[in-house]
């Protein structure tokens, strides 16, 4: 079952990975969509939703501007959901604390995604060179074919990132989860708040809005007082 879960999540990783840069960009690749979608495919959408909330909040403020490559939050979301559901059931530890552990494990491993994406963008330079050769030879359809080859490069990078997250994550969680599950379950609620506060802080720091601090402070205080009084 574990292999089947990982395989199904791999299909989501491929589609969402292509949507991230190479095709469509409907934002199926955002963690708030990709993680619940993976959860739904694996039969546990609620777990996917929990993963999606945490990762979306943390990396919402990281923007793919120009040639910058932001962290691969798509594969982290899909990989963490696959680990939380697949490995969680396999180890008999499925639940909110294991989901949090899966997210904590996937986050640093996901940094490898930036390496793979950089390699793809370097590799794609050859497609441009081959396209120029095709033009010189008068093969105009060949130029279009070279462009579409890029899709396979991005697809491979997505799958490679997903495989590393799920492979390394499974090994780490297999050994560490039984030791950490109890302490994490005692502070699970605080962990969620931690992600929200750090995620919001990142957005405030990167958004470049002159009145961000005062708007945030006023909105927070008003909403908090209302909840307290009611």
């Amino acid at each position, binding site marked *: 079952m574990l292999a089947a879960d990982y395989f199904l999540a791999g299909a989501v990783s491929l589609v969402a990975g292509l949507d991230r840069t190479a095709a469509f960009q409907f934002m199926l690749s955002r963690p708030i969509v990709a993680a619940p979608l993976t959860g739904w495919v694996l039969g546990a959408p609620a777990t996917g939703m929990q993963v999606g909330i945490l990762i979306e909040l943390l990396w919402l403020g990281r923007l793919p501007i120009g040639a910058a490559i932001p962290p691969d939050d798509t594969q982290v979301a899909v990989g963490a959901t696959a680990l939380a559901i697949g490995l969680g059931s396999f180890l008999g530890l499925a639940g909110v604390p294991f989901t949090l552990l899966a997210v904590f494990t996937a986050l640093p491993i996901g940094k490898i995604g930036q390496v793979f994406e950089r390699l793809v963008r370097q590799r794609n330079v050859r497609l441009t060179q081959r396209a120029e050769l095709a033009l010189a030879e008068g093969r105009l359809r060949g130029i279009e074919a070279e462009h579409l080859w890029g899709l396979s490069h991005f697809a491979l990078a997505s799958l490679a990132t997903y495989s590393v997250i799920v492979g390394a994550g499974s090994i780490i969680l297999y050994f560490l989860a039984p030791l950490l599950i109890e302490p994490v379950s005692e502070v699970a609620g605080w962990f969620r708040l931690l992600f929200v506060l750090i995620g919001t802080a*990142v957005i405030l720091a990167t958004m470049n809005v002159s009145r961000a601090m005062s708007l945030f402070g006023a909105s927070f205080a008003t909403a908090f007082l209302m909840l307290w009084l009611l």
Partner: protein
Amino acid sequence: MEERVLPRKLLGLILLRTFFLQASWNFEKLQNLGFFYVLAPALRFFYTGDDLSAACRRHLEYFNTHPYMASPVVGSVLALEEKNCRGEKSYLGIQEFKRMVMAPYAAMGDAFFWGGVRPAAAGVSLFFAIRGSYWAPVIFLVLYNVPHLYFRTVGLFQGYARGLKVVELLQRRRLPDMAIRIKEGTVVLLGGLCAYLTFFTLREESVPAGWGFAAAPAALLVGRLVHRGISPLLQVFIAATLLLTLNRIF
């Protein structure tokens, strides 16, 4: 000279191809192959022989803009190529126009879509997600993709219809101003979201609600640390370790 106007079917095909603009994104010439790929059916319609080769060559040069804002550029370039194949001269060359608009269009698109619409749509959908609604991803996709698809579609058709004058249309839309308003709205939304989560976390953990007022300064402090280049991921791990340690001690 023969009148050559692009059939709607061909424009539809070009619109479809804009969704693959970044399939071969590369570090040397960025979206150059993608831009050529989008235009290719029109170039074959307008030109033959050496003229076609020359047209292909001019669209294989460096190109980079925001993927959604490429649509109005493509539309205007189609209008310019159409004029060119009829032998009419424009006050601005095709390559000149591309070089002139790609950077400002990229800045507008980045600020409006990446910096404005995306965080705002995510902020709204996160409220639904935290309440446990499975509609959250659908709400995000709808809120985000309405302006996205509008710009892709209308941008292409208006660009083709107006040619160089599409720049004036985009100026009238005042996207940078709209982006700032959307960002301000997102900050207000996130303030509410933080307050909501802080309040209910404190209640679940049986901690007096007054402690919640420390959350906003904490977020602002973390924001300053991020501004100074300290990785948010590192901050998450340090804070998580602190939480686990404090829980063990007390």
